[in-house]
């Protein structure tokens, strides 16, 4: 029955299917394991890790908007050392490819993070140059082709497994940034991270989020993400991981047709923990209905 070939290649990684869980929405992979066997995923991405522990932004950290949510977690994480001590042992045992999402304040941070993680049996790094919730560094890096080039190069020098650069949508020209990452030998690109956004409570006359500004995700941003994936796919030769508002198989297929080799599921996990599996099934249905054997017949095939 299931003789469909859903495999995709991201750098040196062979994913058995294109469904990846997005960074920051899937913890370190423990919580959703209660809802389904996470080995059925193509891959999982962990919450962003920094060199030093970060306590994150003051609450509230989430607000719902029309077809979207804004979050301002602010990269809360225990820091790389605690992460290695407490999470790596369990992550190394998983039989699903794991991508570690890292963030830095300075270019050297990224080098150090890659070095530290290089000692463990981990499949891929996803380098977040794009978090809009962090004042220093964070997004500023991701908006300049030059610094994206340098970060990518630095990490590349310290990491020989699969290297993915995650791009921010909050830029004038995402294509030139994608090209800079490719030139510095990134294996793949993830796009998009959240879009800078804000909500206001008119009764309290205050920003709803403790941090005022946050990042918009969910269905509201899907058409924005899709345009970026499509545009970047025309410009680079490395595989893309598309994300932004994917809730259904139809949504995921839009990204695949636009040129993404894989898709990541973020906000949808909150709505339904089983989303990644449901989306996978819907993709399989589509392939059967339309007589496709392999996902490769779909990727980038927009007419």
């Amino acid at each position, binding site marked *: 029955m299931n003789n469909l070939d859903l495999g995709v290649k991201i750098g040196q990684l062979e994913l058995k299917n294109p469904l990846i869980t997005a960074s*920051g*929405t*899937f*913890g370190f992979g*423990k*919580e*959703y394991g*209660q*809802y389904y066997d996470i080995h059925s995923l193509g891959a999982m991405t962990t*919450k962003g890790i920094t060199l030093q*522990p970060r*306590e*994150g932004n*003051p*609450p*509230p*950290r*989430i*607000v*719902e908007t*029309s*077809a*979207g*949510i804004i*979050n301002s*977690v602010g990269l*809360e994480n*225990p820091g790389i050392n*605690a992460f290695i001590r407490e999470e790596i042992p369990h992550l190394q045992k998983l039989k699903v490819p794991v991508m570690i999402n890292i963030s830095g304040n300075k270019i050297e941070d990224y080098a150090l993070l890659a070095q530290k993680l290089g000692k463990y049996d981990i499949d891929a790094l996803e380098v977040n140059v794009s978090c809009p919730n962090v004042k220093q560094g964070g997004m500023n890096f991701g908006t300049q082709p030059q610094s994206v080039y340098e970060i990518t190069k630095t990490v590349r020098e310290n990491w020989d497994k699969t290297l993915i650069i995650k791009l921010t949508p909050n830029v004038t020209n995402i294509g030139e940034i994608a090209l800079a990452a490719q030139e510095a030998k990134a294996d793949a690109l993830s796009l998009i991270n959240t879009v800078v956004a804000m909500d206001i409570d008119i009764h309290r006359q205050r920003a709803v989020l403790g941090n005022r500004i946050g990042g918009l995700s*969910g*269905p509201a941003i899907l058409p924005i993400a899709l345009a970026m994936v499509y545009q970047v796919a025309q410009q680079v030769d490395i595989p893309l991981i598309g994300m932004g508002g994917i809730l259904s198989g139809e949504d995921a297929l839009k990204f695949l047709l636009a040129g993404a080799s894989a898709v990541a599921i973020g*906000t949808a*996990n*909150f*709505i*339904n*923990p*089983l989303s990644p599996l449901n989306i996978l099934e819907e993709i399989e249905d589509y392939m059967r209905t339309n007589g496709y054997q392999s996902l490769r017949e779909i990727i980038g095939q927009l007419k």
Partner: protein
Amino acid sequence: MEEWLRVKSHRQIGNKIFCMAMESSKISQMAHSGQFIHLLCGKEYGALLRRPFSLSSIDKKKQEISIIYRVQGKGTQSLCRMEEGDKIHALGPLGQGFFLNPTYKNIAVVGGGMGIAPLMEIIKYYGGRARVYLGFGEQPIEIEEIKKYTGEISITVEKGNLGKKGFVTAGLAEQWKEKPPEIVYSCGPRSMMKEVASICEKLDISCQVSMEERMGCGVGACLVCSCKTKKKDQKNLYSRVCKEGPVYWREEVIWDE
């Protein structure tokens, strides 16, 4: 755990306040007083995320759970259109519940507004051993229900005349000084719980509070539901209300924000 729940009854019990009972073969068996469920309320009004609700009743024999909620925004507007027989998807039971001790003889419960919901099960559990203090804006709810379990109820309202006038916390210090409860359970507005915690601290009484914070996943994966805490074993200042909470010991919470 996830489960499709069947609505068994759904009735209005106050101004914009509803009680919904649902058939549950799985969650009902695992649930503990103080835990919550994360409900997919329906998209009619555009709610995207799930909404968290404390379990106001857990009946393991009848395989039934209930929630008491107030209609507030998009999610609860959709929720209140659910009819008997409709199905609703839940994650749960989630979070850490209350610490219950069968040997306690004298406990107190302080609820404010909708904060009454998670306290209902505690009142049932301790029955006559519970002194219940409830504060409402104007209209008390569920009083008859509570009276089935305990006679000691004190009701305060901010306006209207269906109870004592004022804040529920007024006079507590004096009463508890005289006859200290072995533990106090509280849920309601933050300022109220802060006051209760502070009274308990002064009188050195154990106290648990049930905190609220806006949630994403509800299962500990997204770190949006943070509450400032000082748990000793924790590296992070913030703790996840959905996982480490919603029930905390009073001394764990950092109140001033």
